[in-house]
């Protein structure tokens, strides 16, 4: 009933909105969306969070994530082999 997707926190900023508070730029493996961290005050840069409708709803427990590495990979779709080429990540074009 509710789609939620895991992504990694790239950067945390203060939204300037008093209640929303901290927001994060979250990377979903190549697409990035801003999410509020109001519901996960413990979240830090590099943490994996599960985001639903613009709000991070939980921080993936790192210990748990290590023990369940396969599960995390599955949740991320990283356990599958994909046919298809990847776009160049933004910012990389300038490095050449």
């Amino acid at each position, binding site marked *: *009933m*509710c*789609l*939620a997707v*895991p992504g990694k926190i790239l950067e945390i900023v203060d939204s300037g*909105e*008093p*209640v*929303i508070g901290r927001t994060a730029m979250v990377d979903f493996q190549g697409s990035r*969306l801003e999410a*509020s961290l*109001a*519901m*996960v*005050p413990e979240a830090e840069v590099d943490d994996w969070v*599960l985001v*639903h*409708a*613009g*709000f991070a*709803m*939980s921080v*993936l*427990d790192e210990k*748990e*994530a290590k023990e*369940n590495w*396969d*599960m*995390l990979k*599955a*949740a991320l*779709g990283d*356990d599958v082999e994909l046919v298809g080429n990847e776009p160049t990540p933004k910012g990389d074009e300038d490095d050449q």
Partner: protein
Amino acid sequence: MTSDVQAVVAELNDLCADLEAAGKPVAIMEICGTHTVSLFRTGAKSLLPSSLRLVSGPGCPVCVTSQGYIDLACDLAAEPDVIIATYGDMVRVPGARGSLETMRGEGAEIAVVYSARDAVKLAEENPTKRVIFLSVGFETTTPGTALSVLEAENRGIDNLLILAQNKLVIPAMHALLGGGEMPINGFLCPGHVSIVIGSDAYKPIADQYGKPCVVAGFELHNMLLALLHIVRQVAAGENRVENVYSLTVTEPGNLHAQAIVDKVFQPCDAVWRAIGMIPASGLELREEYGRFDALSHFDLEMGPDVCPAGCICGEVIQGQATPAECKLFGTGCTPIKPVGPCMVSSEGTCAAWFRYNRNTARTVE
């Protein structure tokens, strides 16, 4: 098939065959619409033993939104200087006189948003308009709405209104089970709702009704594993709460989110489309936040729910019938011309069957 999937399927096959031979075939309800769709989409359904019956529950927020609500949203869309902010899910749901999509065709301003925060932004950017946010959803979605209300309150944004139809899962499970003999042996519980409410929330269900409850994520192996855990419990005569989505779901859930919801909303009786009124199964704005309430702002009342003739949605989402048993399924009722609520949302049981299930497929028109 990957080897881990294969192993789970093999054990499921054995256990279900034994149980069937013992005259006790297993039926499991997936409460959540995203599970319904994921079970089809990943092909999980095709891998399950035929003696294991999966029953879809009432866990699609769009499907259980009463027709009165849709009609109200359409009426509000026709008011002057109104912007309706809504999740994409709601745009096509038909009410008695059309959908938001048809209203948009007639000139109403309908903004599709990802997040309740976008509704706050819209209100701020359009001070001369009233922005009405269609607040539907279960426990995962409501905290964000509550926080957005607090944000608007704090910043003195006074042109945001909320048409609340938020619903609670546990009371719905009580209502399903409390009605008498329920031909369900256990529950596949929604991973993302459980992030907020915690796996402990299912304890009363497991204890009171003797049904195993297992919380699962939405990827193939995880769903199959959860089903296996339920079947194992059924075979052993147990009724515990288990959590195979421990990566993100904890026992108490997200206490911050719970507190935010509690601050802004209070439980109320709510009408579930095609099921009827379930006590304390919905949420309404607390009095302190009453000025955000679209109903009182416009002095309106929600109309009654109407179930279209011939539609057996009520039975479908209570696990008493499958979509294929409906005479209208796939003929009079399709995703393009939906009759009942279960066909309108892509998460609805009938829509998922229509879309993914070969055995009940009608030839492509």
